[in-house]
């Protein structure tokens, strides 16, 4: 292959590796800016990946699969939102529960729908249409940036993550905003899962998300709770994973190569230390105080 060919192939791989993490990281960012930590990204991606395969297989229209992935992710996002706002379960516990629930129910439904455990049958995939999703990830990052920085609704959402009492004092229900933010975040994570199952591949297989939701969680923090930062962090992880894949098999042991993205992340976090600050009310359940009204 020519130099241009090698670089071209690497850019393609970079885009493929980045996109699912980017969608989930953007979803996670949205939730955390409203004050809800989303540990359940992995589960929402799982739900999205599975629903996309089932819908694509049932209708024969892969784009309906992508829509189903968004809906399933949103449903699990809403579940986390309700648990975190109305029931006020500990957000970390609720998110972990969602991960386990999504993985288990997908494994169970797999047998129910396809009559076989482990992996689904193959279904129609988006094919080259998946490049639209790659472009969409960048577009969403930009749109979320504008939304959070320049719109009144974005300001309210950010205020919920910093000082929900002040939002309530202004006559707006912070719990409703948090619920909406986490639901939308789940929809994005679900789309990330759908990208994997019917964008890049054409099937669902147990455990196929393989920790990408947790990488996305790291990307949220690494991206300093901003959409553009999350996108950059997803590119950063995507770059080192792609590099790891390409360099593996040279004289360096494969275990050492597989550490590369994580070592790079730790180095980068140390290098940027001190500049990152989580939303002040991130992860803290908001309770309505009678005196406020």
């Amino acid at each position, binding site marked *: *292959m020519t130099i241009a060919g090698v670089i071209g*192939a690497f850019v393609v*791989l970079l885009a*493929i*590796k980045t996109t*699912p993490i980017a969608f989930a990281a953007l979803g996670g960012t949205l939730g955390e800016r409203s004050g809800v930590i989303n540990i359940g990204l992995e589960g929402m991606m799982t739900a999205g990946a599975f629903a996309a395969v089932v819908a694509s297989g049932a209708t024969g229209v892969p784009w309906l699969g992508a829509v189903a992935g968004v809906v399933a992710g949103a449903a699990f996002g809403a579940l986390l939102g309700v648990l975190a706002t109305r029931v006020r379960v500990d957000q970390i516990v609720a998110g972990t529960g969602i991960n386990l629930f999504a993985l288990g129910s997908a494994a169970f439904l797999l*047998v129910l729908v396809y*009559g*076989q*455990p*482990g*992996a689904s049958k*193959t279904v129609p995939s988006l094919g080259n249409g998946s490049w639209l999703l790659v472009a969409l990830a960048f577009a969403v990052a930009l749109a979320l940036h504008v939304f959070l920085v320049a719109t009144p609704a974005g300001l309210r959402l950010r205020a919920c993550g910093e000082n929900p009492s002040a939002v309530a004092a202004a006559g707006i229900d912070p719990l409703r905003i948090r619920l909406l933010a986490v639901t939308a975040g789940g929809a994005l994570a679900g789309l990330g899962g759908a990208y*994997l199952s019917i964008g*890049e*591949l*054409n*099937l669902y*297989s*147990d*455990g*196929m998300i*393989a920790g990408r939701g947790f990488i996305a969680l790291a990307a949220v923090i690494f991206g300093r709770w901003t959409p553009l930062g999350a996108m950059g962090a997803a590119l950063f992880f995507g770059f080192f994973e792609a590099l790891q*894949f*390409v360099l*593996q*098999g040279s004289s360096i042991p*494969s*275990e050492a190569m*597989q550490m590369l993205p994580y070592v790079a992340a730790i180095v980068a976090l140390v290098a940027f230390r001190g500049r990152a600050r989580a939303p002040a009310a991130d992860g803290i359940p908001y309770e309505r105080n009678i005196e406020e009204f």
Partner: protein
Amino acid sequence: MTDVGGLGDRSFNDSAYAGMQRAARDFRGFIEVLQSRSAADYQPNLTALSNGRYDAIFAIGFLMNEDLAAVAGLHPKQRYAIIDAVVDRPNVTSVTFKEQDGSFLAGALAAMVSRTHDIAFLGGMDIPLLRKFEAGFIAGAREIDPRTVVRVKYVGSFDDVAAGKELANILYDSGSDIIFAAAGRAGLGAMDAVKDRSGDYVIGVDSNQDALVPGKVLTSMIKRVDVAVYRVAVAARRHAPLGGHLVLGLRDDGIALSDFRYTRAVVRPQMRKRLEAIRAAIVDSRIVVPFTREGLATFTPTPL
């Protein structure tokens, strides 16, 4: 007793069950199956079975070795067997496979078929069990043509289908035209990658995966868990001595390549003849296949 994969996995556990069914038919016996939902089920399930009256109790899967050792110690008269692990108890028959021998045949075939003289091994996790496959595959390629390039990459997981596909594409793009995908479900990614390529092939593993992408799966290296289970059942029926370590390989068809049903046009008769000669040489130990990287370093091809 099955591992967590359970019946219906179209691979390991189903293969074991097929062996039991054959034994049950031949001896007019009957079968009881307990499925494990998690590792926490191993010991209770084994104990429950031990309290019944069975000729033999099979633990399918290497993860059960410690639990089986504990339960077998408490029931010294009961006959047990375990697949893919060695349990050192007088009443446990351990069954392992010489995966390296079948991988050697796969490597030899790949080296014969490859037009780029560049082939690849895609492993799941970089663990000793997978290095048996890796070492055998590379040695087999060297047996045919020492100049054949063999690239090695590991997914780092048996689940990550997308990563399996990405790595397979990297390998194909860098010049390999045949990939031996020993990566569990992550190998399905290699099957997806080869689908739209012409002149490139995948070699499947464990069960016969030839029909997954007909014509593109050169062959599958099959591990006959059913053969293992049947043989232990026969021994139990004859009240042969308990215990021991059964190693299955090419000689007893415990390991075999699939029958090239969809790839007969590519795997020409003289290649099949040569594979048969190599197989015979491994069976009577004229070729000793390495199963570690250290062993591979000192391997020299045997002229046949």
